[in-house]
């Protein structure tokens, strides 16, 4: 089944990805993403029945450690790069979330 992509699809994906695209970007991406997906579809013809997925090549490795506190960034350091911070309160400031 060949992939077809519409402007509406691109708008739906952009919304999921939190990207507000311009009309021009929507046009370009509709064409380019359709091309790339059409090319990528060749993988669908490969027989992978019973083949496990490899998400990660070192997945079997043990990663447990003791649950002990270790040094970490101070609040001051953590908010130092924020475009809008409230240093006295030690908070990141963002636009209104509810209402408004």
């Amino acid at each position, binding site marked *: 089944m060949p992939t077809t992509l519409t402007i509406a699809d691109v708008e739906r994906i952009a919304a999921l990805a939190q*990207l507000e695209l311009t009309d021009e970007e929507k046009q370009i991406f509709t064409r380019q993403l359709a091309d790339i997906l059409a090319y990528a579809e060749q993988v669908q013809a490969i027989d992978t029945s019973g083949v496990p997925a490899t998400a*990660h090549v*070192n997945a079997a490795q043990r990663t447990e450690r003791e649950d002990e506190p270790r040094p970490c*960034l101070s609040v001051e350091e953590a908010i130092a790069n924020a475009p809008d911070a409230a240093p006295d309160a030690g908070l990141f400031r963002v636009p209104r979330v509810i209402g408004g």
Partner: protein
Amino acid sequence: MNGLDTTATTLRNDIAAGRLSAVEVCRAALDRIGTVNGSLNAFNLIAGERAMARAQDIDRRRAAGEPSGPLAGVPIAIKDNIDVRGMLTTASSRILRDFFPPYDATVVRRLEAAGAVIVGKTNCDEFAMGSSNENSAFGPVHNPWALDRIPGGSSGGSAAAVAARCAPVALGSDTGGSIRQPAACCGVVGLKPSYGRVSRYGLLAFASSLDQIGPFARTVADAATVLSVIAGADPCDATTSTEPIADFAASLTGRVNDIRIGVPRAFVTEGVDDEVRRAYEAALERLRGEGATLVDIDLPHAKYAVPVYYLICTAEASSNLARYDGVKYGYRSSAAKDSLKEMYSRTRDEGFGPEVKRRIMLGTYVLSAGYYDAFYLKALQVRTLLKRDYDQAFERADVVAMPTMPTPPFKLGEKTDDPLQMYLADVFTVSANLAGLPGVSVPCGFSNEGLPIGFQLTGRMFDEATLLRVADAYERVTDWHHRSPAL
């Protein structure tokens, strides 16, 4: 001193013996960067003052009789997607144009503990997404061998800096070829270690199951020395391996008469430029002449590696780059003051460049309901098949040889309108990342137009020692690495 037309090993030994001072070497590096960066655009940031202070410290310690580290006084350039505490780190993105990391990457901490002197941060494709370095928010890097050509990507600045003798060594990151491919384009050595060999802590994540930091150098021995310094388990990166670390430089014996080189003839076929093919065949013959055995191998799923790679890396990128939202760090759009959601989406549209948006979109699509199984899960299964291909190949061969790139470096602007054509430049490099294997590109010739060509070797998991031994043996009997671009 006249530029830095020497190796890290020589510089380090000359400084340790008092024949050169770290300050002289650092000044020479900074002078060279000042001379060539206007035409190359290889550096996003030149850290002159900090570098000179570090060099003075190295000289002071030596004068006090303290032991010299393995890279004491050696200038190194760092790709601008690796965190250096307090030093502007942008990933060549507008969205991070004023980001000052509050901590060092583990590789940076280890390099500085070994005495290396960071001279600057190198230009790259935005968030390491690209094969030509044309996706940088700060403009493309120019190839030192021909300024109208790409330096390769995404670590193009690091490759160009080493080729142009700005520093004998540099760090890059390789997610689908981003060290090996620019190394080939710029005529230098580029090493992607095994996945898990080097800590990714402090590397700005692109595709976490594929990303790996590694060195650029002008000799395999220098790359081996840097690898020994940066490798090893790190509690800050749970994917780092506890495999023992060899003294990689000590494994370079020059001997290959016990080595079987796997040649995937059926895969190295269409789309490969004639000059690249001839250089590749000549490199194989050269190694055979040194006593290595060539064996035919088959990698039946390698032809799917590019689509599989772009399905997986974009999926991971779409998740990793969700963090750039104008809240914790980086750019925030001033256009949306009244709604959080609008602030996110405006910030991301204004902050990211076209290729990054394209990949976030593609990754979001392949992970979305209705497409996950057909694209993302399928790609993960084919990744398993590709990994099995390599497992079988390594029963018959000790290393696998391929060209690094199917063509010599192409012209800037040649493929920018066609992302799919650009992706195909990665055909020989992405497999190693998907399988987690170490790979190295070494110079193996020049095109008629004088453009560098790279020869790629891929090794067994965590067997960088054998991989580097073969690469070094080839380097010993060739002189490509002695040539310098006329700048």
